[in-house]
């Protein structure tokens, strides 16, 4: 049996109330008032599609040994690199290195489900036993546009494999149409779209029934057999109509999370799937339909193992940990839409030395330190000579992962002098459970809530962006663990 073994969602902690957007820039396109309801999820200034994919993947691991992963697939239309495998960065952050198959899936918004299908086919062919499938997007609409209201940032991840399956993969049906409802050219920062009525009436209302009908015919199924129907469509009126046309059983339609997250691009249908799995019971049939340059329809059936599985960090928990952004300009600055004075200190030209990055990739991407085999002292970064003065053994360290350890804050400050897009720059010393200590940036928190002794978990973040050379540089930061905010 092949299928989903585990899943995780990631919704960035910050939300922007759409009314806040409208109040700031609704004057430009008063018609967007119709969209000014609910919240959109906004990636922090140090997040992008890669870091969110890593966060979702770590949530999805949920006790599964990462060494079992034979592949890491990453789907997004907002990847930080055109050349330099983005999935390779995700794999590195998962401390997977070397013998692992990685691929980026991009182009259309159905890239997420296509990545999932490709992984399932690799499992079916027996060439891989476990694959991490991630999808993540941070699409931008221009200030004042409907897209700005509609889009949100989020990620989803799944461990798919051939054992301990909680949702069996039963089949799929795909269609491709070069239907350019939304597009971005190779140099575009912002989404462009054709008329809504055309997208809705011709796109959603013809293609979704086409792919769903294709799937039902192919496997001799009826719509009423499905307990959970996930399909990507952000138009409320079209959803109502489609539910009727498709014959979606009462209560089977899954929330598109438009009110809490917004449309998260290539991750949209998979985020909805992760949410649906939170509620699935053994025997439930689940349909997932993506939309964008065509459609993929996937068909799953929940197994007995979906009960009693370890608690996943799913959509519901992510939604409970939110913090509202207090103003619209912060969002504009974080997404590099509005230029802002960060101070001359920020203009210092710091090169990324790629040979040094490679030499340190286990540390920089994986947060891998060392543990002395003589005295068991954990140390970060890895040391040639053991840091324990009673030991001092030379070259006796073995790889030791810190990214999965919790820590406590031993000291902290909020720094107004350090150049940051989210001042004050909060940093602190983190003492890891199991030993080891390092000074880290703290993120997803306010200075007022940080205390010594507070528990933190580690989060892979964009450490810097070199505008001159178009480089996103990554490292780990500490995030205070705040349950049920």
């Amino acid at each position, binding site marked *: 049996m092949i299928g989903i073994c585990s899943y995780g969602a990631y919704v960035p902690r910050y939300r922007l109330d759409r009314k806040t957007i409208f109040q700031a820039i609704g004057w430009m396109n008063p018609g967007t008032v119709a969209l000014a309801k609910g919240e959109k999820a906004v990636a922090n200034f140090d997040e992008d599609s890669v870091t969110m994919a890593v966060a979702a993947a770590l949530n999805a691991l949920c006790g599964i040994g990462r060494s079992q992963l034979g592949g890491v697939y990453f789907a997004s239309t907002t990847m930080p690199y055109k050349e330099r495998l983005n999935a390779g960065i995700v794999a590195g952050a998962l401390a997977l290195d070397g013998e692992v198959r990685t691929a980026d899936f991009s182009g259309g918004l159905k890239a997420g489900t296509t990545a999932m299908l490709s992984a399932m086919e690799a499992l079916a062919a027996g060439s891989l036993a476990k694959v991490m499938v991630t999808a993540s997007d941070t699409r931008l609409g221009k200030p004042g546009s409907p897209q700005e209201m509609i889009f949100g940032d989020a990620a989803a991840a799944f461990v798919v494999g051939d054992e301990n399956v909680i949702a069996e993969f039963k089949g799929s049906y795909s269609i491709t149409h070069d239907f350019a409802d939304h597009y971005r050219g190779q140099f575009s920062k912002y989404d462009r779209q054709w008329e809504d009525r055309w997208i809705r009436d011709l796109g959603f209302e013809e293609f979704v029934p086409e792919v769903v009908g294709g799937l039902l015919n192919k496997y001799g199924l009826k719509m009423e057999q499905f307990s959970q129907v996930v399909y990507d469509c952000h138009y409320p009126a079209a959803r109502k109509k489609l539910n009727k046309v498709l014959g979606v059983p009462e209560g089977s339609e899954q929330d598109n999370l438009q009110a809490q997250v917004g449309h998260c691009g290539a991750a949209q249908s998979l985020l909805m799937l992760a949410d649906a799995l939170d509620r699935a019971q053994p025997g439930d049939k689940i349909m997932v339909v993506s939309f964008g340059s065509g459609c993929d329809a996937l068909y799953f059936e929940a197994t007995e193992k979906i009960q009693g599985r370890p608690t996943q960090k799913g959509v519901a928990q992510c939604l409970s940990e939110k913090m509202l952004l207090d103003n619209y300009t912060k969002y504009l600055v974080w997404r590099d839409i509005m230029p802002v004075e960060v101070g001359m200190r920020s203009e210092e030209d710091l090169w990324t030395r790629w040979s040094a990055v490679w030499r340190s990739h286990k540390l920089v991407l994986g947060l891998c330190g060392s543990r002395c085999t003589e005295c068991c002292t954990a140390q970060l970064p890895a040391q040639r000579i053991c840091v324990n003065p009673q030991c001092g053994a030379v070259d006796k360290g073995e790889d030791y992962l810190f990214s999965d350890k919790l820590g406590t804050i031993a000291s902290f400050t909020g720094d107004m002098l*350090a150049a940051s897009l989210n001042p004050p720059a909060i940093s602190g*010393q983190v003492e890891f459970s199991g030993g080891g200590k390092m000074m*880290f940036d703290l993120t997803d928190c306010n200075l007022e809530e940080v205390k010594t002794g507070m528990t933190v978990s580690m989060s892979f973040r964009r450490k810097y962006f070199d505008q001159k050379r178009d480089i996103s540089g990554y490292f780990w930061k500490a995030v205070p663990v705040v349950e049920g905010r």
Partner: protein
Amino acid sequence: MATGIKDKVAILGMGCTRFGERWESFSEDLAVESFTECLADAGIDKNEIQAAYVGTNFDEVNVGKSAVPLSVALKLPYIPVTRVENYCATATEALRAACYSVAAGVYDIVLALGVEKLKDTGYGGLPGGAARGIKAHMTQANMSAPGMFAQLATAYSAKWGLPMDKIKDAITHVSVKSHANGALNPKAHLRKAVSAEVIKAAPMVAYPLGLYDCCGVSDGSAAAIVTTPEIARALKPNQNIVKVKALSVSASSGEEAMGNTWDGAHFTTTRVAATRAYQEAGIKDPRQELSMCEVHDCFSITEMVTMEDLHISPKGGSYEDIMNGFYDLDGDLPCQVDGGLKCFGHPIGASGLRMVYAMYEQLLERVPEDRKVKNARLGLTHNLGGMPHQNVAAISIVGLD
């Protein structure tokens, strides 16, 4: 068997520029200024100097690498000139090298000079990340110098249970005292007395450090010419001789930053360097025996913690000493008698020698009554370069014959 530096070297002359925003001066100009004062004080000819150690830290925004720009500026006649750099301990390291070369009997008369030109960056604070190296660019947290040192306060509060507002009271007193002392000193950068109310109301730089908890970023230079006590007495038969009693340096081992023992609320290096310095100088009770000190008050919290690490205030007990005025100019052990880094200013590569200069002019009673330390016999200077979790501490003790 090594016997240490005590009484083997004498300071023949010293010089120190006015510290501050010296917009009119390059490093070379500042070096010439402290050097000429130093040479006149020593009463010797330039050609009698046999070797020189010059200290600069931020060479990237300064004179560039090597000792050559300074040997050229001072027109030193083809003698060995060596550039020394060790963060904020730079000038003390230059002095240490000069003293050791005299004590070793290699040279009779040696120059130590520190100089720094910081006010060509275009912004406040110290220059940023490039100086920290490529590893820092990849993995070091985004911290300015105040951000690093501010963390002493939160860790200290956690360690000793002293509430943050009490810490703020103590570090505010530290700054009030240094401003009062600096106001009396014509060579100091910041010469205005400031009230506790003003200090506490100032904008936050790095919690809990406000603007007045941070030292001046200054241009300046200081210099010393050292020789043997015999030569010093021969050249200056009618005055007191200031001798070197101890020179002590301790650099981090990595245990503070990466090990599991450091509490973040003290300087391991300072404790070690202080213990060794007292041993070298034959000091048994520094609280009783020292007449005065100049410590590394890059930030007010650094001074608060340092007074414990120098084994003067009890561990966890600097609050009482500070609030009781123990370190005030009229207190039992005046600290930052010239205004300290806080108000005299902190041109990194010059500060160590500036501190010794402050001790030197007190020991020789060359200061006006209003800022004179009574019965000054023995003074300690202390530098701390780097960050609390990874640094170098340098201590010198000088005293009268």
